[in-house]
């Protein structure tokens, strides 16, 4: 129980961090405000790049939706919900890896918010997988 609780707390904290980052980037995108860039100075360049959108939807908004779903599963023990969270976390880590490559190689700029999101995605995926494999089903 302690291990499961620790997993839930860790997933909850990480997804809240992800929600914070993705919310900020999404709000800035739709408000056309200027982006605070704590380190690197390449946040605007990355956020204005064509790769920052998918079919017109900001990738930050997609990330936000994904984090919200995974966060909701923290309160559930249903196996299908945990499987969905694990799948989303896997998609997240793969797509974040691609965006990291685009940022560093194709755009050649560093967006600290994006790196923060990559770290969250990297930590979240193994935790979501572990939880899916180890969580006991809810009692009937």
């Amino acid at each position, binding site marked *: 129980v302690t291990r499961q609780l620790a997993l839930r707390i860790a997933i909850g904290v990480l997804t809240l961090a992800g929600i914070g980052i993705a919310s900020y980037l999404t709000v800035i995108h739709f408000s056309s405000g200027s982006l605070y860039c704590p380190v690197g100075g390449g946040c605007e360049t990355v956020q204005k790049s*064509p790769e920052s959108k998918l079919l017109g939807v900001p990738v930050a908004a997609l990330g936000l939706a994904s984090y919200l779903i995974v966060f909701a599963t923290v309160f559930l023990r249903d196996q299908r919900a945990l499987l969905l969270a*694990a799948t989303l976390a896997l998609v997240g880590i*793969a*797509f974040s890896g691609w965006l990291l490559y685009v940022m560093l190689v194709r*755009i050649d700029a560093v967006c600290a918010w994006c790196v923060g999101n990559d770290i969250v995605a990297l930590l979240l995926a193994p935790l979501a997988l572990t939880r899916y494999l180890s969580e006991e089903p809810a009692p009937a």
Partner: protein
Amino acid sequence: MSGRSAKRRRREAALAAAQRPKRSRRLPSSSVRASDRNARRRRQLLLSVGAAVVIAGVLIGISLARGGSGSAKFTGLKGKAAVIARFKGIPQQGLALGNPKAPVTVEEFADFQCPYCGEWARGALPVLVRKYVLPGKLRIVFRGQDFLDQNFGTSDSERLLRLALAAARQNRLWQVVDLIYTNQGSEGSHWGSEALIRAVANAVPGLDAARALSERDSTWVSDQISAAATRFQSTPPNPTDGNRGTPTFLVGRTGAHMDTIYPTGGGAASELAALAAVIDPLLK
């Protein structure tokens, strides 16, 4: 008696034996269920990994197509030699091209996605440079705008403008501006790719491309964008339609009052004639 009790003992032993296996079959059933469950989880997890790979592959594919927005593909930079030759030997100071003590100054308000600005840059600017700037009579200041990004839901105007302004810090803005307009695509078609931006930065002699690319997000560049937008908004709107369009020009004696020349919409020759009609009398 002993025969009966022996029979009874045998019957009881047989009964106990019959019951024992039943109990032993029941005992592992929960661990079998757990093992089935774990196997099912692993199978589902494999399916989940497969689904994640497919979904991520689709997302990356769309991203590779540059946002799936039907963007124009950069196929190579045009006009490099002509642009380099055009500005050779002409002094630049930040946003300004030409002799700082030139008697007349023109301020140009233009957006990189604006087709009329492109026509002006390709058709009228070379004449203006040859006729007025080279002899030291005219100084031109570039006040880049990015409002067309809002109209088309793009970021091209701003991203291109950021490179031009970063180049201004190395007094190479005008080569960048001219190369961008030489390679201009149609409005809203996402032609201002990172590949084009890098090609332009690398094509300008004397420009430290790496520095310019890294300074695109600098505070100085952001401040210039805001200042140019504010200055454009301070110009009187076109009396014919009440709007501010590009290219718009402010023309006047250097340091004195400036008149506003609105876009004529009649092409480069028409814009040039409108400008020359104001510049020529100021030079007399």
